[in-house]
């Protein structure tokens, strides 16, 4: 029992460290990708001494700068809610990742270590629940800073996130029809056949439309462009975090990028075989590598969309969510279940 507890503790801490580093470098990747799409160079100055290293030390410099900024609380803000809001949005974002498997098993110090922090038979529901909790941070931030832009951002964000959560949940139901379990580890293990290429999206072509609705809904859930109405820079300054500065601002940014990473990981797990790939049976250490490559690919796709597609208008956003995405998800469930029924 003590051994198990120690293993969990180590895995949790390692995962958190990897996640925090990943967040820092995803922000750099975002700036680089944005720069390349707009035919610029992007951050390339901050390096080690004389070596510029393509700006690889930029996130470190940004972090240091942000710590030393003035930690400012507006005069008319609701003091405790204003402080609690960034924590409320960061904590659920950090907690989601523990149920996602990122490899099969490896042997280290004569111990077989399973490459996932924990598994539970309600893994997907756990993730859905935590993403719903994440809305509270944004809404409270918008309300407590006592600023009109923040309030508008918070309200928009809550309405948008709950609207697209329906489409997200119903898309997951379609995947469940094929997978037959909510345990993410089992879902990934079921995709390991045919030299590690029996991914759900290849095995069941009917999941392709489901993937599209799921991906659009998850972009909206993570407040990415074209759904970044909560922080639409051109009309709301910065939306719900207008009044935030210093590390509290960083916490909102971290939560946002953590959500992006988690959403990409879940998409990988549900549709693209998780850590499965060629030769992974013979060399288990390839599992995390494949997983990382797939997640990076999906993150790149999200960035590509961000700098290519213009932002929706708010009424268009709500119309798209309720009148297109939600009916499409329901029709997907009906088609999938009918096809499965006819097969047996």
């Amino acid at each position: 029992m003590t051994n198990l507890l120690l293993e969990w503790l180590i895995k949790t801490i390692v995962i958190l460290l990897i996640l925090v580093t990943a967040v820092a470098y995803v922000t750099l990747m975002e700036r680089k990708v944005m720069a390349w799409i707009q035919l610029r160079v992007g951050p390339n100055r901050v390096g080690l001494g004389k070596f510029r290293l393509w700006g690889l030390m930029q996130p470190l410099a940004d972090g240091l700068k942000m710590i030393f900024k003035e930690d400012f609380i507006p005069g008319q803000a609701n003091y405790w809610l204003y402080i609690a809001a960034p924590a409320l949005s960061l904590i659920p974002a950090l907690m989601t990742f523990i149920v996602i498997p990122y490899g099969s098993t490896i042997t280290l110090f004569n111990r077989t270590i399973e490459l996932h922090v924990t598994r539970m038979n309600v893994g997907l529901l756990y993730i859905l629940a935590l993403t719903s909790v994440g809305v509270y941070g944004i809404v409270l931030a918008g309300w407590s800073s006592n600023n009109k832009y923040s309030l508008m951002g918070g309200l928009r964000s809550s309405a948008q996130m709950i609207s697209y959560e329906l489409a997200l949940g119903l898309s997951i139901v379609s995947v469940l029809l094929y997978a037959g379990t909510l345990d993410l580890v089992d879902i990934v293990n079921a995709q390991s056949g045919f030299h590690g290429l029996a991914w759900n999206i290849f095995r069941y072509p009917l999941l392709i439309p489901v993937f599209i609705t799921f991906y659009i809904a998850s972009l909206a859930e993570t407040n990415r462009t074209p759904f970044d109405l909560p922080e639409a820079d051109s009309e709301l300054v910065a939306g719900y975090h207008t009044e935030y500065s210093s590390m509290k601002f960083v916490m909102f940014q971290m939560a946002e990028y953590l959500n992006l990473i988690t959403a990409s990981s879940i998409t990988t797990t549900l549709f693209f075989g998780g850590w499965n790939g060629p030769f992974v049976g013979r060399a288990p250490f390839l599992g995390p590598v494949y997983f990382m490559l797939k997640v990076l690919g999906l993150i790149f796709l999200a960035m590509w969309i961000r700098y290519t597609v213009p932002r929706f208008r708010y009424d268009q956003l709500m119309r798209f969510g309720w009148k297109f995405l939600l009916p499409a998800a329901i029709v997907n469930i009906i088609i999938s279940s009918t096809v499965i029924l006819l097969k047996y």
Partner: protein
Amino acid sequence: MVYYIPVLLILIIAVGMASVIIILSRLVGRSRPTPEKMMPYECGVEPVGTSRERQSVKFYLVAMVFLLFDIEAVFLVPWAAVFRGVLESETYRSLKYVFYGEMMVFMVVLFVGLVYVWRKGILEWNR
């Protein structure tokens, strides 16, 4: 149940991390408040009115509709999770059309609900 212990672990670590970040920036960053700085930011103009104003009732309606639909979506999850299992099991196989048909009736009700909300104009934002 033992597999839920890591959730507790990560909750403690995440709360700790968040508090350390908040306290650290409070200690390290300097603080020089001025009356102008403490005002709500409105692009440099003197703030007009308060921000505790009335809001559009649309947001409230969307929240209500969301609650209804989300409960129905949650109802679908257990059905979907055991769907293949029921079709494959020897005991329940004879009931597969009942199992499928009942949920289809429920889905039709769900769809009719959506059409009702649609026709009532709750989803029209520019009216």
